[in-house]
């Protein structure tokens, strides 16, 4: 029983990371219908930059902030490159984000080497009635709660948030209002960068990241986002938490080595199922 509580809390924390990555993907997909393969890169870069900032002597908090801001700027940059002025198909934009993710490897290996890098998080461990939980996991959950409330406020209250939702709800209508849909897309990429960077910095103390961790991160983020239908943040959160908990339970009660495979299997099934559902509903799109 105690063991189970431990697994659940770890799973929820890991799931929050997936959800944060997934929310970055959702933020971008909603506006641009591009799946950003470089989402994992934001996490890795954010984490690596934060680790360097800390080792240069910046205090905790500030060092992490530098990492998040850098990831946000990186996001804007990726958006600017992936969304051309003339407009290209979403799938071409997706391939550009692949290119940028691979190009980032060169930077990461060159500056930080190819070995996993860790980050000093909270090292303490909370113990109660036989359960040991690393405080970093609790921190992850706490930060995630703040982030998701922040996202909700941003999208329902701020002008830019409204405009972003408008672009996803009806991009032609947004254009009629004079909203520059491409610029909003780039801003969405920036937001994706911030969310990615945050997730990297939060996970690094418990799971060191190397340059090629990005694939697993983006795939798990995508998994969370797909379970949420690619358009809703709260569903992505639910999707991420479900995935994290399932993974943790599989690792705990069966074997750790099939974590990723099972999670990916769930994603493929979700996509296929959703696709079949849409195909049945699809007639509505044909009017």
């Amino acid at each position: 029983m105690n063991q189970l509580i431990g697994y659940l809390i770890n799973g929820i924390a890991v799931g929050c990371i997936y959800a944060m990555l997934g929310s970055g993907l959702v933020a971008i997909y909603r506006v641009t219908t591009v799946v950003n393969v470089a989402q994992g890169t934001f996490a890795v870069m954010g984490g690596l930059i934060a680790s360097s900032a800390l080792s240069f002597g910046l205090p905790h908090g500030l060092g992490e902030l530098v990492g998040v801001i850098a990831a946000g700027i990186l996001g804007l940059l990726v958006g600017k490159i992936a969304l051309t002025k003339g407009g290209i198909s979403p799938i071409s934009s997706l391939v550009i984000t692949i290119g940028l993710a691979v190009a980032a490897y060169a930077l990461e290996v060159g500056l930080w080497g190819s070995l996993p890098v860790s980050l000093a998080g909270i090292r303490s461990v909370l113990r109660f009635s036989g359960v040991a939980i690393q405080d970093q996991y609790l921190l992850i959950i706490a930060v995630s709660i703040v982030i998701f409330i922040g996202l909700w406020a941003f999208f329902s209250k701020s002008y830019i948030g409204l405009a972003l939702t408008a672009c996803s709800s009806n991009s032609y209508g947004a254009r009629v209002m004079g909203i520059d849909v491409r610029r909003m897309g780039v801003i969405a990429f920036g937001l994706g960068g911030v969310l990615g960077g945050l997730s990297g910095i939060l996970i690094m103390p418990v799971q060191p990241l190397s340059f090629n961790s990005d694939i697993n991160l983006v795939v798990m983020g995508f998994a969370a986002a797909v379970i949420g239908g690619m358009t809703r943040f709260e569903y992505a959160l639910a999707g991420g938490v479900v995935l994290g908990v399932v993974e943790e339970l599989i690792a705990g009660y069966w074997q750790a080595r099939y974590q990723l495979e099972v999670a990916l299997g769930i994603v493929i099934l979700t996509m296929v199922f959703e696709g079949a559902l849409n195909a049945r509903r699809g007639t509505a799109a044909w009017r």
Partner: protein
Amino acid sequence: MSLTEQTRSEILRVDSVSKTFGAVRALHDVSLSVSEGECRGIIGANGAGKSTLFRIIARHMSSDSGHVSYRGKSLAHSPAHSLAGMGLAIVFQEALPFQDMTVQENIMVGGHSTLRHGFLAAMLKTPSRRVEENEIRTRSWEIIDRLGLSDIANEHAQELPFGMQRLVQIGRALCGRPRLLLLDEPASGLRFQERNALAEVLKKLISEGLTVMLVEHDVRFVFSLAESITVLDLGEVIAEGTPQEIRENPQVIEAYLGTAANA
């Protein structure tokens, strides 16, 4: 329906077809019958349900109730791609010419269901493939010739002017040796001269015995071609008859111009 039409055999029958999207009633209890050799126009204002009807006949969408039959056989279980093989050629309004393919290749695609050879035969260049390829090449040339596209047969179809692209689409449909040609808004987006040229081509095809069904909002265009017309309004058939009858039908005038425009 007039007597002369009943003596000709029926090729397409739409039987009390209804379709709703959410709260919107796109089609309500629509029935009509097209005879062999006829040119039928379907007209109606924006939102009348024309394109929904077209999509249902083309098996691109299923109806909520009612059914469509072609030469006495229900189409309920025929997938969209099987219609071409049955002699029912469809030209969608939004269908682009196939990219990076020449005019001739575009037209040859239309003969897909009249040929047999599959992937393996194609890859190994079997004798049957050679025979069929020669046949389809010759057939496509006949069509190119009669549509007057010879000079541009090797151009990429997507680079041609709109009017030519429309002709390529019709050539593509003809290459499947259809008995019934279903056209969705064939005149839309065409210049005046292009419309005339298209009408001439269609007139000729009709005079040679091809059955044509036009779903079209350009009333002038339809009136010049169709011998009978069905008018849809808000998803229902409100009139059917010859162009002259339609033009004088007060209900049609009301549907088009609004109530009491001539008062």
